[in-house]
C-alpha cells in the first residue's frame, strides 16, 4: 500500500510536486506530428494508456466530453470550474490540445474524433483492432510462467542493469547486461565509454539511480524511443506496442503472430529489459511481466507498493522501506540486497555489514563525493524519504532536520565560487574615459564587477563586441 497519506510536510510537498509534473512521456508525444498522433489514436489500448498518463483533471475533462456528439462552448465547461482554480483548468486544456486530443475551435471544445471513437471502444468494448493483444490458447503441455516467476525474472533483469551501472568503475565485475542494453545506456548518456573499454557511469547515470523505479523505467523507454527514431523504426508502432503491453494481463500468454515486423524486432530488446518473458527467443508466445503491465499507472512507484511493479522491481526488502537515519548522521539500512547497498554507497560511507543490516554514516566527504558525481542534495534527501523505514514514519518531519540542513549546506559549500567567462577592461587613460565606457557597459547590463580606484571593470563575454566597437568609435571620433 502506498504511503501517500503520511503526516510529513516534506513528504506531502514532494507528492504535490510529483502530481503537478506531467508524465515524462507526454512532452515527447507533444513533439510528434498530428498525423502520427492520429495514427496512434486509432488503437484503443493506446488511447486508454495515454488517458491514464494524463493528470486527474485532464482525465475528468476528457470524460466529460467523451459521450458528447457535438462540440460544446468553452464557457459551458468553464462554469464547472472554481474561479480560483481557473489556471489549472486552462493548463489542462492547453495540455490536451497540444496532444491533439482536444480541438478548440472558435471557443468550442470537442474531442479528436479518432481519439473519441477509440476511447469509447476501450471503455465499452467492441471494435476489431485487437489492440489489447491476442491471448494465446492454454497450452496443456507447457503452462505459462506463473506470476511469481515473472516477477522474479523482471526483478533479476532490472537489477542486473542497475547493478551494472552502479558498480562500474568500482573494480567489481558484475554480470554484464546484453549488448543492446549497454548500447542503450551509452546512447542515453547514462554511461559513457570514453575512459577505455569498460563503460563508466556519468552524472546523469547517478541521478538516474536515485529515481523511483517507475520513473527509471520510463526514462529508459523514452531513450529507446529516441533511439528508435534513429534506427528508422516506425515510432507509432513502437508506441502502440508499449501501450499494448501496458494493458495486457499479468500471467497470461499472448501470440506474436499479429505483431508487425517492427514490433517483433522489439521483442528482443524488451526481453533484455525484463518487460516480457519468452520461453525461447524464437517462441511464438510471450508473457508481459509486471514491469510492462504497470507502465500506464501514473502514480509514482512508491516503495511500499506491493501490487505495483515498483515494489517488485526494487526488491522485496524495499516494500516497507529500510533506511533508518539518526540525528548523529548514522544510517542503518536493513537490507541484504547488493543493489541497494551499492546505491547507498554513493552518498554514505559504509562502516559495517551484517547479514541483513548495513551501517554507515553520512559524512562531508561522502556527500561531496556524491555531489561531484552530479547527484544533488535534494535527490539524496528524497531518496532517503522514499526509502525510510516504517519506524521513521512516526517522526515529523520524517528525516532529522539537522541532517537535511547539513546535506543542503554541503551542497551550497560547493557553489562558493562561480566562474564566468568575460573580459577585463583596464588601463583607461583618464577617469572620464573609464566612466564613459563603464556607463555604456552598465546600460547594456554586462558589467559583472567594477573597481573605480583601479579604473578597471569586468564585462561578460556577450558584451565584449559592443564595448569594443564603442571604444573604437569613441577613439576614432577623437572627443578626448
Amino acid at each position: 500500500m502506498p504511503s501517500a497519506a503520511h503526516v510529513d510536510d516534506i513528504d506531502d510537498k514532494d507528492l504535490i510536486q510529483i502530481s503537478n509534473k506531467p508524465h515524462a512521456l507526454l512532452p515527447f508525444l507533444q513533439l510528434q506530428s498530428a498525423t502520427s498522433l492520429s495514427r496512434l489514436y486509432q488503437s484503443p489500448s493506446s488511447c486508454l494508456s495515454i488517458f491514464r498518463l494524463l493528470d486527474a483533471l485532464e482525465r475528468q475533462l476528457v470524460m466529460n466530453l467523451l459521450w458528447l456528439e457535438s462540440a460544446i462552448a468553452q464557457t459551458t465547461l468553464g462554469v464547472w470550474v472554481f474561479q480560483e482554480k481557473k489556471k489549472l483548468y486552462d493548463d489542462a486544456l492547453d495540455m490536451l490540445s497540444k496532444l491533439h486530443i482536444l480541438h478548440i475551435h472558435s471557443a468550442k471544445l470537442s474531442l479528436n474524433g479518432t481519439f473519441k471513437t477509440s476511447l469509447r471502444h476501450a471503455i465499452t468494448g467492441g471494435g476489431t483492432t485487437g489492440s489489447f493483444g491476442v491471448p494465446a490458447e492454454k497450452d496443456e503441455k507447457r503452462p505459462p510462467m506463473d506470476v511469481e516467476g515473472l516477477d522474479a525474472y523482471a526483478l533479476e533483469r532490472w537489477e542486473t542493469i542497475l547493478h551494472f551501472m552502479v558498480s562500474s568503475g568500482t573494480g567489481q565485475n558484475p554480470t554484464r547486461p546484453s549488448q543492446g542494453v549497454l548500447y542503450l545506456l551509452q546512447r542515453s548518456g547514462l554511461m559513457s565509454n570514453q575512459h577505455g573499454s569498460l563503460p563508466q557511469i556519468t552524472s546523469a547515470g547517478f541521478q538516474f539511480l536515485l529515481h523511483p523505479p517507475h520513473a527509471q523505467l520510463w526514462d529508459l523507454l523514452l531513450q529507446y524511443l529516441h533511439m528508435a527514431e534513429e534506427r528508422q523504426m516506425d515510432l507509432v508502432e513502437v508506441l502502440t506496442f508499449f501501450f499494448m503491453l501496458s494493458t495486457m494481463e499479468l500471467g497470461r500468454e499472448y501470440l506474436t503472430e499479429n505483431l508487425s515486423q517492427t514490433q517483433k524486432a522489439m521483442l528482443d530488446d524488451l526481453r533484455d529489459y525484463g518487460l516480457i518473458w519468452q520461453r525461447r527467443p524464437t517462441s511464438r508466445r510471450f508473457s508481459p511481466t509486471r514491469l510492462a503491465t504497470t507502465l500506464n499507472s501514473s502514480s509514482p512507484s512508491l516503495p511500499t507498493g506491493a501490487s505495483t511493479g515498483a515494489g517488485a522491481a526494487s526488491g522485496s526488502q524495499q516494500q516497507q522501506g529500510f533506511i533508518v537515519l539518526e540525528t548523529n548522521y548514522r544510517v542503518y539500512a536493513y537490507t541484504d540486497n547488493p543493489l541497494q547497498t551499492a546505491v547507498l554507497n554513493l552518498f554514505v560511507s559504509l562502516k559495517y555489514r551484517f547479514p541483513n543490516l548495513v551501517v554507515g554514516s553520512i559524512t562531508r566527504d561522502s556527500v561531496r563525493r556524491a555531489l561531484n558525481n552530479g547527484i544533488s542534495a535534494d535527490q539524496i534527501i528524497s531518496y532517503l524519504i522514499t526509502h525510510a523505514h516504517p519506524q521513521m514514519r512516526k517522526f515529523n518531519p520524517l528525516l532529522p532536520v539537522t541532517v537535511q540542513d547539513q546535506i543542503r549546506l554541503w551542497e551550497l559549500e560547493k557553489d562558493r565560487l562561480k566562474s564566468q567567462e568575460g573580459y577585463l577592461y583596464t588601463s583607461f587613460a583618464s577617469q572620464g574615459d573609464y566612466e564613459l565606457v563603464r556607463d555604456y557597459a552598465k546600460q547594456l547590463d554586462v558589467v559583472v564587477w567594477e573597481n573605480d580606484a583601479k579604473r578597471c571593470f569586468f564585462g561578460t563575454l556577450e558584451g565584449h563586441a559592443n564595448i569594443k566597437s564603442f571604444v573604437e568609435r569613441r577613439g576614432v571620433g577623437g572627443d578626448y
Partner: protein
Amino acid sequence: MAGSHLSVVIDLSPSQWHLSSLHQPYPLDISAFISQLLAFLNAHIAFKHENTLAVFGAFPGKSTLLYSSADPPAETPSNDANYFPPLKLVDSTMMHRIVQNLETLTQNNGDDKAPSALVGALTKALCYINRLTLEFNAATTNATEGLEPLALPDSRILILSVSPDQTASYIPVMNSIFSAQKLKVTIDACQIYGPDTVFLQQAAHLTGGSYIYLERRDALLQYLTMAFLPPPSVRQTISVPTQDKIDFRAACFCHKNIIDVGFVCSVCLSIFCQPVPVCSTCRQVLLTKFPFKTLQRLNAARSSLPSSPSQPRNSSAPSSPQKTNGRTPSRTEAPLGPGGLPHSGSISLNNSTTNGAISSR
C-alpha cells in the same frame, strides 16, 4: 498515491424499474440503465490503474455484493483482443450476478412487493470500506503502532435509487450517515426515478456529497460522468452540483412518519410526532417532560399560519399536540405537573424553507 475507491449501491427493485420504463417523457428501462451504468463503472476503472470498485445490489428484501475488485471471481472471461481485460471482468461478472439474482427473485415470487433493501446495501458498502481502511492501516503499520487510524483516501459511495423513501429505515439511514462521516466517506446520491428522497438528500449533504434528482433520464451517463466520476481530489477544482434546498425533515420514532414539527426527548434525543409522557426509547419517565404551556402557545401561533403545502407526506402531523393518540407507546398517562422542565422542548425540523439554502458557489 492510492487510487480512489468507489462503492456503488444500485436499487434493483423490479416494480420500480417497470414504472420507470413506462414513465413519460423520458422512459428508462433497466437494461438501458445497466448498460450506461457499466460504461460509468468502466470509466472509473479506466480512470486510474489503482482505482478500486465494489458494487452492491439492493433487491426487494435482500442486498448482495455484485462485484468487488478486491476479490475478483475465479473464472476469467474468455479471451478477447478487443477489450481491456479488467473492464471485461467487471461487465461479465455484473451481468451474470444481476441476472442470477433476478432469477432467484422470480422463483420465490410474491416477494416482489417488498421494499428494496437499500439500507442493507448501504450498510454493506460501509462495512466494505471499513474493511479496506483496516487493511490499508495494517499495511502502513499504523494500527500496530497505536497511532490514529488513517482514513482511506478518496473513498466514496454512490447510491442510485429508484424507490421512494422508506420511512421505517430512518434510524438505520442516519446511523449509516454517521458512520460514513466517521470513515470520511463521501456519499453521492442520484434519484433516477420516483419522488425526491429526504434521506438521500440528507446523506449527501451531511457527508459533503452530491445529490441529483435525474430529470433527463435519457442523459443518465452524462450526469453520472460529470457529477459522480470526479474523485474528491478533483472536486477541489471542478465543482459538482450540490443542492440548493435540502429537506431536513426527520421521521418520528413512533410511527415512522416524516414530520415537520417533532418532539424530542431531552435525554436521548428521540423524535416523536406527538408529545409523549414517557419516552419509548429511554423510558425516562421523570425527565421527559414536554413543556405543554409553551406548546400551547406555539400551537396557537401555528394555527394562524396556513399549513405548508410542500409536504405531501406529512399526513399525520399532529394538528393538536395535546390530544393523546391511542397508538403512542406510552403506557401510563402520567399527569404532567406544572413547571415542565426547561431543558425539554420541541424543535422545528422544517429547516428547508428557512436556512437550508446552500448553493454550489
